[in-house]
């Protein structure tokens, strides 16, 4: 009597098991790696209608963020400046440069420049800039080193864990109020010393200013 199943099928169940295991791990690894804002958002860098550079304006010229984003301290929303703000200088600097044609046109006609929004939380999240800026949380914590970017790039994932990590322990990030817009400011150039001072001063500031650790859902979802 010949075999019903040929000999090679003896190994089949094992092979199927291994195969399914491999495919399963690959799918899980893929989902873990790709289905997160760390992949979806970080690196988003749309082409803007005007080649505006934060590296030139904020770093090289040393302008304060609040010259342009002047509502950031008093409103939940950090505004993009009107073309008139650019014309404060560009009515003389690069006066006829073609790269600024859209800015001049917008300033003259009042038609807004179609900047592409980069950072955007879902509509059910009620984020607020003024609380953070007024509590010594620097722009760099959530936006990365904007002052080194020629084109703004989405540097942090801005997911719910990202927000909560800091809300659970703000002392690790807090800094003096007048250093909030100096993105590369540090307590000390030496990393070890910096960490020690951050811990020391951070905890003191959190206690002095009575900074709350906001974890209840209604802080951000209303």
């Amino acid at each position, binding site marked *: 009597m010949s075999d019903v199943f040929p000999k090679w099928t003896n190994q089949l169940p094992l*092979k199927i098991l291994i*195969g399914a295991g*491999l495919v399963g791990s690959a799918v899980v690894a893929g989902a873990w*790696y790709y289905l997160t804002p760390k992949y979806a958002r970080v*690196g988003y*860098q749309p082409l803007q209608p005007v080649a505006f550079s934060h590296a030139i304006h904020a770093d090289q010229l040393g302008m304060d963020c609040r*010259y342009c984003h*002047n509502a950031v301290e008093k409103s939940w929303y950090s505004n993009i400046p009107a073309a008139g703000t650019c014309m*404060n200088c560009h009515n003389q600097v690069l006066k006829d440069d073609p790269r600024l044609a859209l800015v001049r046109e917008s300033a003259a006609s009042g038609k807004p420049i179609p900047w592409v929004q980069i950072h955007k939380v879902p*509509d059910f999240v009620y984020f607020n800039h003024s609380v953070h800026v007024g509590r010594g949380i620097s722009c760099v914590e959530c936006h990365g080193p904007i002052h080194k970017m020629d084109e703004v790039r989405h540097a942090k994932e801005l997911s719910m864990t990202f927000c909560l990590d800091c809300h659970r322990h703000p002392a690790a990030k807090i800094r003096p109020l007048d250093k909030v817009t100096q993105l590369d400011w540090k307590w000390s150039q030496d990393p070890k010393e910096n960490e020690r001072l951050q811990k020391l001063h951070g905890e003191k500031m959190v206690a002095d200013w009575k900074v709350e650790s906001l974890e209840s859902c209604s802080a951000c979802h209303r």
Partner: protein
Amino acid sequence: MRTFLAALALAVALVVGVLGFRGDLKRQPPLEIFPDMKRQMKLRPQATAAFFGDGRSSREFVPGTVARSTPLKVGDQLVYPFEDAPVNTGRLPGTTTNFIDAIPLPVTEEFMARGQQRFEINCLPCHGPLADGKGVTSKFGLAIVGNLHDKRIVTMPDGEIFNTITHGKNLMQGYGANVAVPDRWAVVAYLRALQRSRLGTLDEVPAEKRAGLK
């Protein structure tokens, strides 16, 4: 088995090839696969809104209306931002040139510090940290920036400086929209301090601080 492994490796390579790595440059906005309630029918500031003729969600004032506002306390009076009052315009009510001579708000140390901060944010790029017209932009073609230590400006009434900050002058554009009314007065106060620092004589410095100056 070998073909299966090869196929799996190919599939992984294909996925990584197409999707890339975390943090890669992306020109397209992030995908929102399950939109749920991520984008709702409310308007965000500075967004596009098809409902309005000009397509903007942030609206300009309807002519003849005023914004809800908190009044400013001047002495024992409450002054609203829309009133024609010296604190809002820098001049006597109903006139165009009668600028007031003194800052109508109490000048405290806190007020001065605020003035310094606002000066450094808004004025420093062009006028420079010392207000001598040598800001960083002077190297890039902004050549005719006023030196605020000029006699003309030192003797100018406070109200006129306030008015220049608000509405601009010659090539300088107005900063009224960017700097709030009390902040503008604070900047005037700080500017006066900068001017005094050049005009002062050694006799005015308290004796115990003189040594540090030389």
